[in-house]
C-alpha cells in the first residue's frame, strides 16, 4: 500500500473521490498471524457493522420523531465508519479475499468487499439481518447488538494487531453511546403505555433467539483469540448477560432474562455464511447500483 491519499480538486460537500480510510496506517501483519485468518475475522466484525448500519439507515425519515431519525442515522454512520475500517483492514491483510473486478475498475478493496460479495460470503451474525419491525423491535435489537459489540471492542483494544486495536479503541467510544441510547429506549417504552410496553416486549422476544449465536465461538475466532489478536465471544457472555439483566430490571421485564438466551443454535450460522433470507434481500438493494457499474467512479 502506498499510503498516500493525494486528492483531486473536486470540491463537493464531502468530496467525491474515494479515500482509503487506512491511508498511511501500517498494515503489516503481526508476527505469526495468518493474513487470511485475520481478514476472515475482520469480515465478521465488519459485516456485523455494515449490515446493522444498513438496517438502521432504513429508519431515516421513518422514526417516531425527528430527533430519533437523526439518532439512528448517526449510529448507522458510526457503524458504517467501523465497517469501512474493518473491510479495508481485511483487504490489506488478504488481497485474495477481495472479489475480482474488471481491469481498470477504480473500486477500492473495502467497496469490492461490501458490494461484490454474495450473501453466502458475508460473515455477519443473523441478529443484524432481519427486517426492522417496529421501533420497539429495533431498539431491542440495537440493545442486544451494541451491548455485545461494546463488550467485544472493549477487549479488542488489547489486540496484538495494532490496526484492530486502534479501530476498537475508536469504536468503544461510539458504541457506548449506542448501547446506552438503546437501553434508555427499552426502559422508556417498557415503562410507558401498555401499548409501548407490549411492543418492546414483543421486540425483545423476537431478537432473543439470536443471542445464542452471539455466544458461539467460530474456529477462526478461537485460533486468533489464542494468538492474542481476536476476542473469543464466549468470554463476553457473562458481561453481556449482566448488562442486559440491568436493563430488564429497570424496565421491569425481569421475566425475559437475563439468561433466557433461547434455543441453542445447532449447525452452521452466520459466521459460516448461512444466513436468513432477509440478508439476500438487503444486499440486493444495497449492491444493485455498484454491481450495475463495476467500473463506475462515484
Amino acid at each position: 500500500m502506498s499510503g498516500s491519499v493525494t486528492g483531486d480538486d473536486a470540491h463537493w460537500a464531502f468530496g467525491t473521490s474515494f479515500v482509503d480510510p487506512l491511508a498511511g496506517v501500517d498494515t503489516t501483519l503481526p508476527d505469526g498471524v495468518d493474513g487470511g485468518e485475520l481478514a476472515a475475522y475482520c469480515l465478521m466484525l465488519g459485516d456485523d457493522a455494515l449490515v446493522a448500519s444498513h438496517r438502521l439507515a432504513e429508519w431515516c425519515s421513518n422514526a417516531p420523531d425527528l430527533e430519533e431519525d437523526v439518532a439512528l442515522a448517526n449510529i448507522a454512520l458510526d457503524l458504517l465508519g467501523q465497517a469501512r475500517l474493518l473491510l479495508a483492514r481485511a483487504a490489506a491483510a488478504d488481497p485474495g479475499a477481495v472479489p475480482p473486478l474488471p481491469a481498470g475498475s477504480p473500486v477500492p478493496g473495502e467497496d469490492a468487499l461490501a458490494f461484490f460479495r454474495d450473501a453466502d460470503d458475508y460473515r455477519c451474525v443473523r441478529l443484524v439481518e432481519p427486517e426492522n419491525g417496529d421501533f420497539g423491535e429495533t431498539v431491542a435489537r440495537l440493545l442486544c447488538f451494541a451491548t455485545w459489540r461494546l463488550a467485544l471492542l472493549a477487549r479488542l483494544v488489547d489486540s496484538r494487531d495494532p490496526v484492530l486495536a486502534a479501530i476498537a479503541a475508536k469504536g468503544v467510544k461510539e458504541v457506548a453511546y449506542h448501547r446506552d441510547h438503546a437501553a434508555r429506549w427499552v426502559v422508556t417504552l417498557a415503562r410507558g403505555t401498555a401499548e409501548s410496553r407490549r411492543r418492546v416486549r414483543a421486540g425483545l422476544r423476537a431478537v432473543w433467539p439470536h443471542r445464542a449465536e452471539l455466544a458461539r465461538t467460530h474456529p477462526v475466532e478461537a485460533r486468533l483469540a489464542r494468538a492474542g489478536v481476536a476476542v473469543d465471544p464466549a468470554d463476553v457472555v457473562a458481561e453481556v448477560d449482566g448488562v442486559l439483566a440491568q436493563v430488564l430490571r429497570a424496565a421491569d421485564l425481569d421475566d425475559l432474562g437475563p439468561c433466557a438466551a433461547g434455543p441453542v443454535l445447532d449447525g452452521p450460522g452466520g459466521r459460516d455464511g448461512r444466513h436468513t433470507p432477509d440478508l439476500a434481500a438487503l444486499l440486493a438493494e444495497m449492491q444493485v447500483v455498484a454491481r450495475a457499474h463495476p467500473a463506475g467512479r462515484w
Partner: protein
Amino acid sequence: MTVLGSPVCDARELAAQVTDPEMPMLTLADLGVLREVKVEGDRVRVVITPTYSGCPALATMRDDLVRVLTTAGYAAVDVVVALAPAWSSDWITERGRAALQAHGLSAPGPAPRRTGPVVLDLGPTRRDVACPRCGSGEVVLASEFGPTACTALYRCRACAEPFQHVKEI
C-alpha cells in the same frame, strides 16, 4: 513557485489554519485532528485523525489540506490517517472552545476516562452545560445525537433556543 520563509513553519501554519468543513469556526488544529506536519524539501506529509470512525468530513479535510499546501508551492502533499490514539474531545484547544461558544455551540466537558467494561448509564448523560446564547444553566437534552457525529442537541428553557453541544468522547 518558491516557498518563502521557513518552509516547516509555513506548512505547519498553513495546515493549522484549514477549517473543519462541518464546524468551520474551528481550525483543524483547534479541533485537535491535525496530528503532525512534516516537511522534506518541497514535500509535505500531514497526519490527521478522524473524530468518529464514520466522520464524512475527513475526505474534505484531505482535499482542503492538499489544495492549500499545493497552492503555497509544495510539490507533493501526502495526507495520511492516524487511528491511534483515538481522537478525544479533550484535544479541542481553549481557542477552539471559545470559537464554539462564540458561534452558539456548547463546548465539551472532560472526556470520560475508561478502562475495562463500560458502565451502563440509564439516566440522561450528566453534563455541566450552559446555553451558549444566554448563559442559562436551565437546559434540557433533546437528543444525544445531533446534526453531526460529534454533537448532541439541547434546548434552553430560559431563551427557548435549541443548540448543539459537542459530545465528550
